[in-house]
Each structure stands twice: as C-alpha cells, then as structure tokens.
C-alpha cells in the first residue's frame, strides 16, 4: 500500500477580489518506506499540499489517502498515524519541554504513563534532557525546533510530514525521490539523478592552456561531443554536452593529447538540483521537505 496517494487535488483560495489556485490538479504517489522531497518556488503550493495531507485543509476537488485513510472521510484515523512539524515551532512557550511532550502524547491518546515514558525517550534522543524542565520560552531557536520535531514523533507516527525550508543539497542527500511542484502542479518527478539527466545530462568542460589552440580544440569537441560547444573566451573554457560519461571523458583527453593540445583542466560535470530547478521553473528554489517514512 502506498504511503500517500493523491489524485487531482485542487485548492483554491478565494478572496473578494481574486482567486488563487494554490493546487491545480496534483497527482502524487509516495511508496511506504521512502522519503519524498517536495520542492518548488515560493507560493508553488508545497505548504498547501502538506496541510491538505495532514487534514488541516480540505481540498476543493480531488481525493487523497495517507496510510490508506481518506483525508476527508477518515481524517481522525489518519491523524493517529501521522506526525507534523510545521513552518514554525508549534510548542507551548509557557510549558517545559517535558510538559509539552507529555501534553502532545496525551492528545495523541497515549495514556499518562506511556506519554511520560515516551517524552523521556525523545528528550534523550533530541539532546534536550538538561533543559527538559525549563520553560520553553527560555529556549534558543534551535532547541525549539528540536522540541517541535520531537513533538511530531511522540506518537511513533508511520508518516512524518516536515514542512520547512530546506536546502537543495539536503534534499539531494535525504530524499529518495523528488517531486517538483510549481503553480499548483507537479511538473517533474523522479530520483535526483533522473531529474538531473532529464534536464540536460552531462557536460564536459575543458580549459585550454594556450589560446592559440582553441580552434583545434573546438574541432575535436565538435567531433567527440553530442552537441554544440560553447566557448567562454575569458577563461578559455569550452563546454560541450556529452553522453557516455567517463568513457567519453577519456576519449576527449586522448584526442586532445594526440593533437598536442595542452589543457589546464578537464571535468565531467553533472547538473546540480539547482540547475534542474532553474530549468524546470525558471526560478530559484525555496524548497520544503515532505517526508514519508
């Protein structure tokens, strides 16, 4: 059973003068035991998506299940298997960390003893044990975030939703798969590697030592490469799209050597997630992460 299924989710925010289609028909399937990174520019619909899947918002159209529970009809069962950590640390500032965790545990329907035990475990795990009995108001931002995350884990959820700003490198490392969302639609989906090759594949960059040898180097790249080369005059750097990875790199090094062309540097370059993002949306990313476990 997939952890998350979504079909044609639509959410429209209406005000007197405007209509914003926050979600405009989102389809998504996330397998159990995987981490999905939901990335997109500001206002792309990431938070709306998380809020709908965690039952905080109702969609205007479409349907979705989380852990097999319908987000509208079975909202209460759904809530007992998820943990949510939102954009700000949603903890009670006037309680201690231990009291916060105990409270959330109770509201998660653990009994008082279980709740206390689980709170103790999490305080240990999140390195909050020394500050456990201090009022949260005195906590630093980082400590609050840790407590917030611990609160999301109090009921040992099967799915964890994290709605927070994430760096692309983090997403690249943590997420098994990535969905890129823009203007309320999922515009790309796959592993980081799949998305990268989808966007433009690999390129080979050569920095030629002697400006006079540029012409001959261009000829070789035109022959060996799989597309039009580009020259950066200033740095004497030639870039050419190339398929064939490391093998192609070796071939170009050999051909340049045979032609007696000295090089300062040569590299096989893969696109980063930043490149992917820019190519797909035309905007820089501000990612949010949604994780399913």
């Amino acid at each position: 059973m997939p952890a998350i299924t979504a079909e044609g989710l639509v959410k429209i925010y209406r005000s007197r003068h405007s209509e914003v289609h926050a979600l405009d028909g989102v389809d998504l399937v996330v397998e159990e035991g995987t981490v999905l990174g939901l990335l997109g520019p500001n206002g792309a619909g990431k938070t709306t998506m998380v809020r709908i899947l965690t039952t905080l918002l109702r969609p205007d159209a479409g349907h979705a299940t989380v852990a097999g529970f319908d987000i509208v009809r079975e909202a209460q069962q759904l809530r007992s298997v998820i943990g949510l950590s939102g954009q700000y640390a949603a903890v009670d500032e006037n309680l201690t960390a231990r009291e916060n965790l105990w409270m959330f545990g109770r509201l998660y329907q653990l009994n008082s003893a279980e709740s206390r035990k689980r709170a103790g475990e999490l305080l240990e795990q999140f390195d909050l044990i020394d500050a456990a009995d201090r009022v949260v108001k005195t906590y630093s931002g980082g400590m609050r975030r840790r407590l917030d995350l611990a609160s999301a884990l109090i009921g040992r959820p099967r799915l964890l939703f994290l709605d927070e700003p994430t760096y692309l490198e983090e997403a690249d490392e943590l997420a098994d798969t990535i969905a890129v969302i823009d203007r309320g639609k999922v515009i790309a989906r796959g592993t980081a590697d799949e998305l990268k090759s989808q966007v433009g594949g690999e390129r080979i960059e050569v920095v030629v030592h002697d400006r006079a040898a540029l012409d001959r180097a261009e000829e070789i790249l035109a022959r060996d490469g799989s597309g039009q080369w580009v020259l950066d005059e200033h740095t004497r750097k030639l870039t050419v799209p190339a398929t064939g990875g490391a093998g192609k790199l070796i071939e170009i090094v050999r051909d340049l050597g045979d032609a007696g062309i000295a090089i300062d540097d040569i590299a096989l370059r893969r696109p980063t997630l930043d490149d992917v993002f820019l190519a797909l949306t035309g905007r820089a990313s501000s990612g949010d992460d949604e994780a399913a476990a």
Partner: protein
Amino acid sequence: MNRTFTDTAVITWRNLKRIPRIPELAIFAILQSIMFVVLFAFVFGGAIPLPNGGNYREYLMPGIFAQTIVFAAATTAVGMRDDLNKGLLDRFRSLPMARPAVLIGRIAADVTYNAGILVVLMASGYVVGWRVNTGLPELLAGVGLLLLFALAMTAIGVWLGLVVPSVEVAQQVSFTVLFPITFLSNVFVPPQSLPSWLQPVAEWNPVSTLTAATRDLWGNPNPYVGSGLPGQQPALVTVLWVIVILAVFLPMGVRRYRNMSR
C-alpha cells in the same frame, strides 16, 4: 465521550499552567480592577452621593466584580489568537484528539482563572469596607451569577480570537468595545444621570443587570431601580442574556474553528 473529557482536561491544564508561568498577567488584571476601586472609591466616589445615604464602596464593589468579569472576553480572545498565531491550533488539529476539547478547554480554564481573580478582588473589597450583608447562600448565588456571565464572555472571546487578524487587534477590539459597555451601566454612576435615549441601553445592559442582581443578593446598596423588567428582575435578565450570548457566539466560534480547514 471519554476522549472529549480527558482531552478537555489536558487542554484546561495547559491553559491554567500559563497563570503561574506568567504571573504578570493575573497581577495586572487584579491591579487594573483595584485601580478602579481606588479611583472611584477615593477620587470620584465623594462626588457621587447615593440616595438614602448608602455606602458608596459597598455600592461600587459588585460593579467592579462585574466589570472585571466582562474583561474575561479579552483574556480569552488574546489567548485564542496567540495559539493560532504560534501554530498551536494547527498542531492540535493535526492530532487525533477530540475536536471540541480545544474550545471547551479554553473556556473552562478562563472561567476558572476569572474565579480566582474574583476571590482576590473580593478579599480586596473586604479591606476597603465592602461586606456581604446577607448569608452564604446569597454570596454563592452571586458568585455563581458572575461566573455564569464569565462563561458567556469567554464564548464571545473564543469567537473574537478566531476572527481578528492579530493579538494586538484582539486586545484593541476588546477594550474599545468593553470599556464603553462597562461605563454605560449602573457600575459607577446612577443610570438616571444619562441622557434619556441612553437610559434604556444602560438599563438593559447585562453589566447593569449583573451588578444590580449581585447588589440585591448581597444586601449592598442598589438605589436606582427602574420600573422595567431589568430593574425588577435583574438576575433573571442576566441569565437570559447569558443564554442569548451563548446561543449566538458559541456556534459562531465553533463554526469559525471548523472553517479553519476551508
């Protein structure tokens, strides 16, 4: 049902914890009321003679109690809004808890809080010469009426807190609306001194009927008795007000809370 009960208890506990953790809130709430006592008992009081020579401080204190209870709405609205802003309402809504518990727990805690404030104020009143001249049952009946009214005011506060855009606005709205209501009443001055078109307003004002009812119950001076229903049956009119307020604002607050998922 069991879930609703335990979750409400947890939320109430959490709301009450705030009182010892931010003692300034309660201290200034009490100081504000005591300031009114001092202001009116010692500054303006001399200029407000009561017919039949009643004791102005005995006359004043029930009004101060009522005024304090009216401000329960502000406390609730601010607390509610604060929870919403800090993302706590979202967290509660994402938990498998009984949904009404958040609202009931807020109301229960705030009524309890006001009961505590009332006890301190009554002790202060005793110091400046206010007395209950009847008996314990009347004392308890009066306190019951005040707390019933506190319940109505917290119901308004729940709705208000969910409607206003920020804590500051919650505060501002409460004070701009509540201050005139407490002054357009029999709390500090005889309503007969008002312009004639305002007199019915002051007479039917629940703050007036609540004050008049407790004055009657405790044998405190209540010299300005109108001939209408609110003058003759202030306790009854107060209870009717409570029912009307609850019937209007409770569903509005609940609907507002539900519609957060719109």
